[in-house]
């Protein structure tokens, strides 16, 4: 067991709780930098996908995990980012600039869509974003002069200031750097007054409002930031896939993103990464497992959605803190070794909270 004694205010302000933790993260950073030189190009590109999805999950975690709002339309923001990047990259903009533009545009769209819905109850945001996602899908398919219609847009290699990324490794490093920066930004945001306000709004809008936090405004800020982060991921996504088509950005995709944060663990930055890795690994695992199942089940087209659904329901019923919760429990078990008790993480008894008056 380790006890952290706080002897200076700087300890409270630091990113890491203690030196050992900092050392672990340094080791992780080194491992992430070295790993593409040890793996096959296919695995490296899969890792890049994990990083890109992690950025999406971070954006959604900010909204869902920390502000408590449901969005069923984040694929639309991914689409806004990806198409912006595709168009601007074709015009020869350097990547950092076009990525910033993608983020700005996605954030601006988020404000326009989210503001009306956020004035009313929580569930309306889910419906409004879902409606928005379907409209965006249709617009992308119909607005052929800009988006190329149903056949989509080809995207060139990622290029900035005389450097063109031609292989998987280069793409991996760009994604890694972006993911690291976004993570740092999100972690710091959550420690700031704004981030604290998000959490307050999540836990109870009424008590947040009593403390002088305008709930509607902070929900809108959270939504805009979340959309902007997803836009950044969209810019990377466009370069990683090299083609953007409307059918990559459906409502089902949005639901998959939501699953990512729930399975990863709502309300934890780690959870975003766990969830992204899970969503990438599971289809591959299913593809391997298919051969060992009876053909009536293994060959059914519904196998993957059914498993996804089962896992999602299972996590919510039995492990509401997601993969991160499981990880924390395992860690605590070993930290406290013989003294871990089963009830340590038991859920508090919760009662229905009504949003209605009366």
């Amino acid at each position: 067991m380790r006890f952290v004694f706080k002897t200076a205010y700087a300890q409270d302000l630091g990113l890491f709780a203690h030196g050992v933790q900092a050392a672990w993260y340094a080791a992780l950073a080194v491992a992430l930098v070295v790993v593409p030189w040890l793996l096959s190009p296919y695995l490296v590109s899969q890792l890049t996908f994990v990083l890109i999805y992690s950025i999406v999950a971070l954006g959604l975690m900010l909204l869902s995990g920390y502000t408590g709002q449901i969005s069923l339309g984040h694929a639309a923001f991914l689409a806004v980012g990806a198409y912006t990047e595709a168009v601007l990259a074709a015009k020869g903009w350097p990547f950092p600039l076009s990525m910033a533009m993608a983020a700005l545009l996605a954030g601006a769209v988020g404000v326009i869509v989210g503001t009306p819905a956020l004035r009313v109850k929580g569930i309306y945001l889910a419906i409004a974003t879902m409606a928005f996602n379907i409209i965006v899908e249709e617009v992308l398919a119909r607005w052929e002069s800009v988006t190329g219609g149903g056949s989509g847009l080809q995207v060139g290699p990622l290029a900035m200031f005389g450097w063109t990324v031609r292989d998987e490794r280069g793409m991996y490093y760009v994604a890694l750097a972006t993911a690291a920066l976004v993570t740092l930004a999100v972690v710091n945001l959550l420690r700031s007054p704004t981030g604290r306000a998000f959490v307050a709004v999540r836990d109870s809008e009424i008590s947040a409002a009593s403390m002088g936090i305008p709930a509607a405004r902070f929900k809108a800020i959270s939504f805009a930031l979340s959309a902007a982060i997803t836009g950044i991921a969209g810019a990377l996504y466009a370069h990683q896939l090299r083609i953007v088509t409307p059918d990559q950005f459906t409502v089902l995709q949005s639901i998959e993103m939501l699953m990512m944060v729930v399975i990863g663990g709502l309300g934890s930055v780690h959870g975003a990464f766990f969830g992204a890795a899970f969503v990438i690994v599971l289809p591959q695992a299913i593809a391997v497992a298919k051969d060992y199942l009876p053909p009536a089940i293994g060959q059914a087209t519904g196998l993957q959605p059914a498993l996804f659904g089962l896992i999602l329901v299972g996590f919510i019923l039995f492990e509401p803190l997601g993969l991160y919760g499981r990880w924390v429990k395992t860690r605590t078990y070993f930290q406290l070794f013989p003294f871990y008790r089963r009830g340590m993480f038991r859920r508090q008894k919760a009662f229905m909270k009504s949003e209605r008056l009366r």
Partner: protein
Amino acid sequence: MQALQVIVSGISQGCIYGLIALGFVLIYKATETVNFAQGELMMLGAFLGLTATAAFGLPYWAAVPAALLAMAVFGLLLERAVINPILGQPAFAIVMVTIGFGFVARGLVTMIPGWGTDTHTIETPFRGQVLRAGPLVIAAEHLVIVAATVVLSALLYAFFRYSRIGVAMQAASQNQLAAYYMGIPVRRLNGLIWAISAAVAALAGLLLAPLTFVHVNMGFIGLKAFPAAVVGGFGSLPGALVGGVVIGVVEALSGVYLPEGFKDVAAYVVVLLMLAVKPNGLFGETMRKKV
């Protein structure tokens, strides 16, 4: 005259949306949770009806109540197994559970022999018949949909207005805690609400089957019922039906008079406009909690 013809078919399509929306609203009023799997319940109901007519050889008029009853029991069990344990958790958890259940339902249906990924038709006694009213030509399927919707609404109205259980459900939906204090078994009522809602969904599925066939993804029509519920004001039963009809008519009209592509998004444009202009819907209750 063409406009009238389009409106009539829009109304019957809208009744389907309305019925699905009715399912959402019933559950929302009772438990303040939104069931994103309503479309999948509808799909399951249609498949059960298909099995009853095709596999067991029941006549249509016997197959419909059988499917409704089966789905009601299914709804009850679903609530017991999945929803009841997490009541009281944030709305987020329940939304995700219903989404997850929708995925499971859609996935499992593809694995059941005889259901699978094919499209099926349910044989109905009124197939292909039309009613001519002056220059109007109305297909019997559409008439049956509208008639069934009207009858069902009347039944539900009477149930909530006059029966003991119905009144108890109203009380529980207005204030759960107070209902508990009055000795109303709120948890059991919640199960019953899910049963009713699943049966309504199954009815929508059976009515829709002659128009669109029975297949795994027919539940996606449930996504169009959300706009219907919002337009009517989430939490109002007549609102859900009116919202459904509004969405159905707007959709049908935009399919004829607007450029291609507008038909698919009309419902969603309407709901975004509605949220911007009148967020509480046509029949919504405008109440705010004072701090």
